[in-house]
């Protein structure tokens, strides 16, 4: 029964893709309906007229868009239902589909872990279902055909769902490739711009290199057992070395998709150029699918984890978290910034996964379950608020035609609802109490603080340092999102586009993010709901769950013991309401003190202009100066001097370029190497037919010699 729900989700997303193809087939449909009505004249003439009028050009495309996204939304709903029901029933459902290789039909397995990620995908896709019709309306049909967008969106979503269902390496890779390739076409959707094509190519390249690494890692496992089903792979008995090699390959492959520093470079390129609801899905969900792959590989397929892998994950995660947020702080393109922030959040998740592995390998399964809980909760939360922020960015782009934060300002008055939703997203991602981001951060800290159960001195001193980095990351994230919200929504508008912007009219475009914002708040106040679900995942996968996660009652969060640490968001909320209520009541009772509006302080010179406000680069300048080594900074100030002895500055130009270290340090050497190699290989290609004949001859001789 439950598996049928999951299949329905996959089929509905596929259906949404194929329905989108009808966009260009209006004439055929028209012909078909005419012949249909001729053959079977309907009893009700009005009915036929209704169908015919719906096939009129504009109405047709509108209805079709609605239908496509409704199917997608339904697929999300089914995914949520499937996920929740498998989590509640705690069953492991296996099945086989008669597709695929003749000797290896597709194996399907739907367990708690898949169910949990189904839930994540479902919520995100559901929100996109609301949001999509209004958003894609703006694309000109000729240049950006909806059929392509709809088709690849459907394929992309079904690919992600299939990855979660896969129970053999072959099926897994097919689903994985479906997901990667479909999303490549989505990134390349606005292909008229060469930069977009380049970004899409980079994405495809890295996705394929990553896929290669994943195949190899499966291959390592498969060579120690027979068969490609995950059941067979689980039986593989690997030596420590081979297990480590498999782990390294898997980390590279899944890490490339997840966006771990230094293989994160495709994220900030691909996310800004894809349509916003796609970048929301890519950033909010696809990265989580990569996380799922890693968890499945390390905790399920590999027989046991080593603490050294945990250390590797911890370090990679820490570097990604810090690097991601520092790079995010320097961005002025909103979606690029959000992409870097995804790197940060994935870094935090990996860090906590690392802790989980370390605890697991050191015989502390209960603490491992705590870390696992924190990591998955953060993955869930990140899916919520990052989706919310990307969809919000889409609304902003839709209304202002800008993505440059420095060109916005004052939108809080012109777009009150969007700004409220975006504010909730910013507060959640900054990890402020009462919102969901804080809960997972709190759990991560609690995990890291359990370090004194370990015996190993290196770990005991390494983990606190990682915790320190986590604290720094959280604080910088808060600074980053103050910058984002402050520059975009507050102050005075910095460009004409943002001055003329107004609230989005399409209610669905607000409903999608609104749903996510509501969930962000809800799970910030009642995290217990989702935590108990994840606890079941931990119980099934790690064989150990947190025993007393509700020792104090369902309002409380006490992961280790009530004595040790506890947090009760509902009580905190009540306290906050009381405090705000009292202060507002006390201060507003005096009618003489009604607010008055006046000009702001301008030092007595008058004439404040929007250009005098702080902008992005000004805001992040102290941080840029403090952490100067982290970026490659190219700062240029050109002054036009005039007057006697060139003393007066007539005009001043300021240019700033901040670049990622990974390009010149890692990728360019690789590129040079590949080019050099190609030239070397090119040397044997002389273009002379006689030489080629010679090659064939020598090859033949060698072959004959080998055979004989």
């Amino acid at each position: 029964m439950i598996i049928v729900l999951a299949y329905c989700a996959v089929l509905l997303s596929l259906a949404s893709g194929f329905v989108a193809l009808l966009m260009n087939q209006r004439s055929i449909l028209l012909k078909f309906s005419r012949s249909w009505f001729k053959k079977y004249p309907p009893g009700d003439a009005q009915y036929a007229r209704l169908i015919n009028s719906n096939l009129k050009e504009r109405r047709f495309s509108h209805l079709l868009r609605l239908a496509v996204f409704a199917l997608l939304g339904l697929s999300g709903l089914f995914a949520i239902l499937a996920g929740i029901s498998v989590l509640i029933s705690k069953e492991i459902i296996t099945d086989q589909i008669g597709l695929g290789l003749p000797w290896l039909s597709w194996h399907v397995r739907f367990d708690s872990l898949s169910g949990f990620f189904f839930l994540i995908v479902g919520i995100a896709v559901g929100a996109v279902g609301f949001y999509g019709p209004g958003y894609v309306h703006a694309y000109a049909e000729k240049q950006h055909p909806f059929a392509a967008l709809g088709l690849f969106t459907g394929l992309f979503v079904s690919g992600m769902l299939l990855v979660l269902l896969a129970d053999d390496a072959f099926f897994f890779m097919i689903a994985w490739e479906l997901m990667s390739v479909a999303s490549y076409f989505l990134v390349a959707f606005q292909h008229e711009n060469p930069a977009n094509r380049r970004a899409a190519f980079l994405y495809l390249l890295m996705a394929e290199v990553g896929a290669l690494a994943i195949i190899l890692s499966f291959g390592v496992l498969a060579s120690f057992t027979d068969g490609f089903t995950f059941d067979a792979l689980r039986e593989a008995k690997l030596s420590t070395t081979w297990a480590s090699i498999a782990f390294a390959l898997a980390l590279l492959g899944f890490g490339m998709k997840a966006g771990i520093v230094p293989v994160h470079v495709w994220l900030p390129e691909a996310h800004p150029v894809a349509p916003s609801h796609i970048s929301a899905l890519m950033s909010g969900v696809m990265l989580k699918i990569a996380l799922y792959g890693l968890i499945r590989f390390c905790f399920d397929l590999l027989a046991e984890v080593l603490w050294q892998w945990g250390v590797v994950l911890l370090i990679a995660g820490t570097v990604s978290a810090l690097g991601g947020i520092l790079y995010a702080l320097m961005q002025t393109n909103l979606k690029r910034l959000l992409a870097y922030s995804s790197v940060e959040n994935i870094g935090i998740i990996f860090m906590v996964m690392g802790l989980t592995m370390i605890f697991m390998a050191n015989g502390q399964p209960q603490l491992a379950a705590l870390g696992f809980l924190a990591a998955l909760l953060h993955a869930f939360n990140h899916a919520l608020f990052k989706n919310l922020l990307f969809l919000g960015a889409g609304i902003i782009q839709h209304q202002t035609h800008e993505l440059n934060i420095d060109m916005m300002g004052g939108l809080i008055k012109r777009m009150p609802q969007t700004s409220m939703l975006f504010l909730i997203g910013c507060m959640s991602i900054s990890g402020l109490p009462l919102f969901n981001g804080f809960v997972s951060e709190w759990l991560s800290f609690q995990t890291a603080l359990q370090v004194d159960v370990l015996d190993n001195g290196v770990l005991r001193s390494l983990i606190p340092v990682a915790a320190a980095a986590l604290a720094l990351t959280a604080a910088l994230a808060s600074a980053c999102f103050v910058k984002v919200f402050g520059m975009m929504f507050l102050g005075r508008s910095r460009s004409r586009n943002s001055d003329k912007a107004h609230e989005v009219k399409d209610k669905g475009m607000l409903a999608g993010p609104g749903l996510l914002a509501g969930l962000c708040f809800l799970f910030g106040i009642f995290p217990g709901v989702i935590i108990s679900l994840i606890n079941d995942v931990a119980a099934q996968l790690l064989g150990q769950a947190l025993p007393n996660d509700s020792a104090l009652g369902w309002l409380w969060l006490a992961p280790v013991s009530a004595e040790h640490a506890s947090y009760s968001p509902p009580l905190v909320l009540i306290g906050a309401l009381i405090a705000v209520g009292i202060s507002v009541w006390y201060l507003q009772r005096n009618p003489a003190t009604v607010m008055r509006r006046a000009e702001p302080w301008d030092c007595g010179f008058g004439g404040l202009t929007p250009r005098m406000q702080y902008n992005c680069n000004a805001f992040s300048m102290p941080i840029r100066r403090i952490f100067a080594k982290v970026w490659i900074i190219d700062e240029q100030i050109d002054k036009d001097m005039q007057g006697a002895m060139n003393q007066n500055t007539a005009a001043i130009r300021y240019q700033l370029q901040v670049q990622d270290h990974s390009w010149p340090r890692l990728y360019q050497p690789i590129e040079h190497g590949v080019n050099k190699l190609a030239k070397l290989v090119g040397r044997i290609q002389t273009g002379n037919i006689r030489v080629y004949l010679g090659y064939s001859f020598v090859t033949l001789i060698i072959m004959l010699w080998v055979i004989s």
Partner: protein
Amino acid sequence: MNWLIAVIQTSLFAALAPLLAGWIKWCKCRLQNRKAPSLFQPYRDLIKLTNKQPVVAEQASWLFTIAPYIVFSATVLAASIVPLIAVDLPTSASADVIVMVGFFAFARFFLALAGLDIGTAFGGMGSSREMTISSLAEPAMLMAIFTLTMTASTTNLSVAISHVLNDGLVLRPSFVFALFALIIVAIAETGRVPVDNPATHLELTMIHEAMILEYSGRHLALIEWASQLKLMLYGVLIANIFFPWGIAETFSAKALGYGLLAIFGKLTVLAILLAVSETLLAKMRLFRVQEYLGFAYLLGVLGLLSYIILEASR
């Protein structure tokens, strides 16, 4: 009963914060050979401000007007977590020390947004600097606090303080590091010399003041009160974590009275120390603050490491 004590304690916190500010000012004035204002001057200022009509910048949005309430409430909530005169509070259980740091972040988030809301250079300058300094200070503070929480193996402040109390007088190297780290952070976070100067009105050197430049009337009163509360809160944290003796462990009238006296005495001494250091030190350049806070961070990490290497039971 427990909840009643918690509420009373939080009210005491809010009520006494201006007095502490007045006392620091008094000490500073005497040290600098000036005539001191009355100890109760901060109260008068607050009352005066609440009765004045607030003037708000034209382009300010709703966020600007609600920010003071949020800032104040978040700070009061943070204060409600910290044991002032008695341990074993129910509020300490409902929110631990990480939540307290979260409340500070909450208040700062809105204050910085309010600074950006009016669209002047001062507001932006203040917000930018505040966020920079706090993003360095917050991890340093967490490190110092983690040293404590690992020693007591809890993040619940009440339990942690009782643990230190029950351990008796033990000299822990980790605590010495953590104490210094916390003092440095406290000075930075509450905007005192040498990081920021609460008395300055020179635009280019302001941090906290630049952010709240546009506030007036009851809004300003709330923000001022919140920053006095924050100052007291850090004082109480330092006093009660590292020198918890005297704090009430039972809820008898006698114990509570002693607890009140004890915290009075501890804060009096701390305030004098702060006044002396503010008199002796000069404000430093903005771009030396990171070295100062980096030092705090380092102390915090050293504290944690020395706990793990030297003191942990294994």
